[in-house]
């Protein structure tokens, strides 16, 4: 406990020295860490500081072993304190937004209500129920999972794609069905064959709007050109305008630039 306290004090001191505002901890679900995982402070990259690996065991146990079992082949080279990959020694500045922040931002960008974003099987809320833990949450009341993962879980990218693709499909279909009430694809003209003009100002505006709302930046000229060019690959689709809008929406909102801050 004393060692944990010292580690906590050390982490806070380093973070303050680096000018990092720690209010982020309070804003993040489960940010106080779970019930007392020994050393959890060091493992949680919430201080934006270099986190040294824990020292090798310093107990007074007799010699290791290093044992490979008696009936095993000669031991493989196993992980050891000296064989840490470089990633473990690099400070992490990026933060995963997690399930609640991700959904709120998606709602804002696509102008959807919470229950319009994504429902698995049309019944179960994607972000706050089915994929809550995959998207970096804890689930203490219903699943007895008290602590969130310190890093995005392995299945987070797929879980997030499911959410975004569902929400994008909803937004695009609504905008195309009622152009006068469109919240994103404003003034984009789509003809009877489902075609749009990728060189039109309305198309550029739609891309700029999505980038500004989602990524808080303008698209580079090269990106605008690339999105215009991307349309050419879709012209044989049944509804190329719709496909193009889904493509842009999905790509921007599943990008790592959107899920991290």
């Amino acid at each position, binding site marked *: 406990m004393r060692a944990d306290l010292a580690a906590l004090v050390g982490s806070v001191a380093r973070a303050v020295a680096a000018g990092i505002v720690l209010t982020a901890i309070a804003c993040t679900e489960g940010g106080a860490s779970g019930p007392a995982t020994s050393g959890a402070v060091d493992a949680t990259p919430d201080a934006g500081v270099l986190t040294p690996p824990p020292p090798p065991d310093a107990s007074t146990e007799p010699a*290791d072993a290093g044992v490979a079992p008696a009936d095993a082949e000669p031991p493989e080279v196993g992980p050891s304190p000296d064989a840490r990959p470089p990633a473990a020694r690099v400070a992490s500045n990026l933060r995963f937004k997690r399930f609640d922040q991700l959904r709120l931002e998606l709602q804002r960008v696509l102008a959807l209500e919470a229950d319009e974003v994504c429902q698995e099987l049309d019944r179960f809320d994607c972000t706050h129920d089915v994929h809550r833990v995959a998207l970096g949450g804890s689930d203490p009341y219903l699943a007895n999972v008290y602590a969130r993962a310190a890093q995005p879980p392995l299945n987070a990218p797929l879980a997030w794609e499911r959410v975004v693709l569902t929400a994008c499909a909803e937004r695009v279909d609504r905008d195309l069905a009622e152009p006068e009430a469109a919240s994103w694809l404003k003034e984009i003209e789509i003809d009877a064959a489902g075609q749009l003009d990728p060189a039109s100002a309305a198309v550029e505006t739609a891309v700029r709007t999505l980038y500004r709302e989602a990524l808080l930046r303008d698209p580079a000229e090269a990106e605008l050109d690339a999105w215009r060019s991307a349309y050419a690959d879709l012209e044989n689709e049944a509804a190329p305008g719709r496909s193009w809008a889904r493509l842009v929406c999905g790509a921007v909102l599943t990008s790592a630039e959107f899920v991290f801050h």
Partner: protein
Amino acid sequence: MSFTRRQLFIESARWGGVGAAAMALGSRRLSANPAEPRFLLNVCGLGGASIQDAFMAVRASEAGANAPYINTFPDAWVERIGPFTAVSIPPGDVAGFGGDSIQPEFVRRHGGEMLVYTHRASSVNHPIAQQRVLNGDRAWLGRTLPEAVAAHYGDAFPLANVNMAMSGFAEHGSDPSLPSWARAISVTDPWMFPLALSGHLGLSRPWAGSEVQRMRAARARIVEAHSELLRTNVDDPMWTQWREHRDRLALLESAGAVEKLNINPSTDERPFDDFGLPTSADLPRLQAAFPRLAQDPFEAQAALAFLLLKHRLSVSVTISPAPQQLRIGREVVNASSAFDAAHGVHRPNQALMWTRILRVADRLIDLLKAEPYNGAGESLWDRTVLFMPTEFGRGQYRPENAPIFGTAHDLEGAQVLVSPLANGGQVLGEVDRQSGRLRGFDPEASTSVVDASRTGISEKETYAGVLHLLGVPTPGSGLPDVRALRRNA
């Protein structure tokens, strides 16, 4: 308390030959090469399982004058099978509780591969003790057992480490150097989990697979390639891991994981068919093995665990009952607080929960035995260690002759391993029949040597013993060599 090898063989044969056959397989030299993985299957005894209510029970006649004051059973309720005991409470004999016990059957079927050993926890706080039994009280880099196994064997497994357990058993380790793919994937709903293994299958607003592939390519080529944020932080661990996850998940999608792991028959409540999601081809036999699969999350976890191992998606899977009461129809199938319901009513709740986890373990073992590992006659079971970790034991005192009594947490307890790789057919350590207290054993002896100076091996020794049983090398770790847990050590 121990058997000689010869005695064990005779006993195994007497138990029906299953143990003998397993023993023969267990003696085969198995490689610890990561390319030839061994599998860890944790079936957690959440809440504090009392070994004195199962495989180290004390008959009243054995306890002498102390029998009325400690947790002893009427002699007829305790069957001795080899080195183990098995408790069966006659239905209705304890305040209406009691029911079919699977303990005698379990010992007869799996005793030759079962190792029960005394263990001393370092905490009587549930989440802390649960974490420590899986991470050896931070014995090695802060890695949990499932993480260490996954790091050694799991590189080629898309979901190397899946954890469906709860509370402290669900906690991640604290080693920042652990490969990202060895970290546990937490599963809180085994029925819905497969949906998270595809970016597009079964979406309520459909996307074609080719459309998703095009989107991913455009995302990388257009958005992320021009992102100043990502360029500046190209070596940031978060972004690096995100890319690693994506690469691994592509393998998962191509492996058809959703179809392989979908254990849901389509129903009005969960209409999977409506969304084009086929169920696992194994569903009929899983329903036969786990008849409450559709209602009981623990049975659903077990079914999913089997499929994860069968399809070589995972090398480490952890499951546990929930710490809430579950009633199906009129039957209570899970005690409130699981084994910890013993605080108020010890004996029947311990019996209920032992039956619950042993029944699931029994059926998982059967499924794994029936699953070929390779063409050389090995089954998946031959390479599996089924560990039943519990965080601590229970106090053993009761008011005079009380059939209903409550017990507190106790540092003294025991762990159960079942595996062809384990030093099975033994109880290591013993129970003092006059007091119900446990005694330890020498962990570095290859046969059972009772050590009355301690009450069981430590969390660190359990951690080392299980890792080495699985053939995970631990160079430079300082971990002890717990030979007593390994067959042929």
